[in-house]
């Protein structure tokens, strides 16, 4: 997918979303992200960050406008097709508590492959390399996810998000529960892995000190006014 640079990873035009007509609304005139681009989105809570992420990964559908992810028109796809697209092309890392507590580390990492319909045996080798590269040693793989430290759990989340070779990695304040040492390690690992997969990253945070890792920056306020990322 990354071999076709002509298709932008994300392309949205005149996107409009609201829960109730006349109430709060999110309006995004234009945004284009080339594949491999890393975007830092900064926004205070209540600025519509979560809504934007829900739109980008196809959980919610825009009221009007266009939203193409990897050339696929998310605004016209059925909810099942959007779920399918998310399983195959979009990886998500949350703030914290990214893992299903009763599954092992390995099963957590393999979760999206299940929904993408890929055989476990196909991805297992890749999963082991990925987990190793993220500094998760083999003896942790079959432990319950909850026995790991928060930093380790977040790294398992990266492995899970990147395992299906997604086009897009969406991270929603994934470092907020980490201390500063862990945070730097996490950021470097995440972006390095994303790069080696040719994956576009959208990173949402209110922590401006993390901006240094990114080549483009966007403020929710600017986004709503239709400014192109600089």
């Amino acid at each position, binding site marked *: 997918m990354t071999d076709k640079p002509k298709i932008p990873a994300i392309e949205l035009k005149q996107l409009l979303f609201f829960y109730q007509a006349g109430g709060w609304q999110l309006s995004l005139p234009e945004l284009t992200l080339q594949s491999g681009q890393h975007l830092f989105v900064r926004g205070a809570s209540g600025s519509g960050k*979560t809504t934007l*992420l*829900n739109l980008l*990964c196809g*959980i*919610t559908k825009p009221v009007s406008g266009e939203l193409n992810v990897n050339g696929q028109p998310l605004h016209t796809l059925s*909810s*099942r097709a959007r*779920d*399918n697209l*998310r*399983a*195959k092309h979009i990886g*998500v890392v*949350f*703030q914290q*508590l*990214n*893992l*299903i*507590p*009763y*599954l092992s580390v390995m*099963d957590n990492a393999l*979760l*999206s492959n*299940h*929904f*993408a319909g890929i055989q476990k045996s196909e991805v297992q080798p890749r999963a082991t390399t990925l987990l190793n590269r993220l500094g998760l040693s083999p003896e942790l793989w079959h432990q319950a996810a909850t026995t790991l430290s928060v930093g380790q759990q977040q790294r398992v989340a990266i492995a*899970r998000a990147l395992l299906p070779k997604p086009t897009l990695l969406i991270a*929603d304040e994934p470092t907020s529960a980490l201390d500063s040492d862990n945070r730097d390690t996490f950021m470097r690992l995440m972006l390095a892995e994303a790069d080696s997969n040719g994956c576009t990253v959208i990173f949402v945070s209110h922590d401006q000190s993390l901006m240094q890792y990114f080549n483009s920056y966007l403020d929710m306020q600017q986004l709503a006014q239709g400014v192109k990322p600089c």
Partner: protein
Amino acid sequence: MLMKLARLSLWNRRGTVLMTWLSLTISIALLLGIDHLRTEAKSSFTSTVSGTDLIVGARSGQLNLLLYSVFRIGNATANISWPSYQRILKHPQIDWSIPISLGDSHRGYRVMGTSDDYFNFYRYANSQPLKLAEGKVFSGVFETVLGAEVAQKLGYRIGEQISLSHGVGEVSFSQHKDKPFTVVGILARTGTPVDQTVHVKLEAIEAIHLDWQQGAPIPGRQLTAEQALAADLTPKSITAFMVGLKSRMATFTVQRQINEYKQEPLTAILPGVALAELWQMLGMVENLLLLISLLVLLAALVGMITTLLASMKERQREMAILRATGAHPWYLFVLIQLEVQIVTLLSMLSAAALLFVSLFVLQDKLAAEFGLFISLQIIKLNTLYWAGGVMVLSAVLATIPGIIAYRKALADGLTIRL
């Protein structure tokens, strides 16, 4: 994977799941148990007499006649005179008959005077004849054949001497002590009131009452057993008799003719019809029991759904992760359904095991105390219907948390509300 998720998720919440499983097991066992006892009791009940076309007694209600002639419950209001009995037997349609003479007892067990024909023609369950476990059929006047339970409970062996009491109470003040009986045979267990009966010849009933009048010994007129044997022992009356007809087609005709018999007011009943009527009365009670056990089951299922609903809050994170990795909301719905079905299915299996073990333990007691013969065969077509019904009911109830999971998945999206 779906199965693995459901299994591990249940294991993760094993505390509440265990309690749910326990309450479901008990209520399903209760439901299946009551249903099983009901059908077993009915078959045990309706199999008390078979192959008999008519039961004839003095004029009374059909239930009363059925109860005292077959179940040895209650008493006859009047007797049938011996000449009338002999005259009716001459009816061309009548193949065989079993005379029954009641009124005495032995330590709480009813004594029944009858003839050899009883052992030849009486049938129970699926036309099974009576079989002797030990000894032989009585031939002498002062000989008796005991029902299986009488012999077992009182510990009687062949050759033992017993004496009968006048009346049917457990404690009797008037005994027929002067004319003891010898146990010559013990019947095999039948699971019917036959097991609780002491059988003697009709002539024996006559013999022990020779020196009695109006229910009391005649003062100053004591006959020894030998003297009694020398007397004319033709019965003056009997309590009732069972009739087998040559052709079943004639049943209603013969019944009508007996009911219209001029010389004496008589009642002839069809045992099958009377049993059905009696069962219908008892049926009210067992239907009520069934209803109660259904409500208990419903309460247990609602309890399961309640715990599921309570757990939905702590499972939001799990649901959001599944959604983020590409699960469709339907997947979450199916996951919840699957969890419910696993718990229900496990509960049903353990309920069946529980029921089997309890029946195994209680079987003898039920047989001894209530004369109920309950088989251990608990898996029947009916059980499968119940099992299917329980599964459907739990599936219907599980749609509530299922739909909540589905809707929350759509509304919350990727947010994890802590």
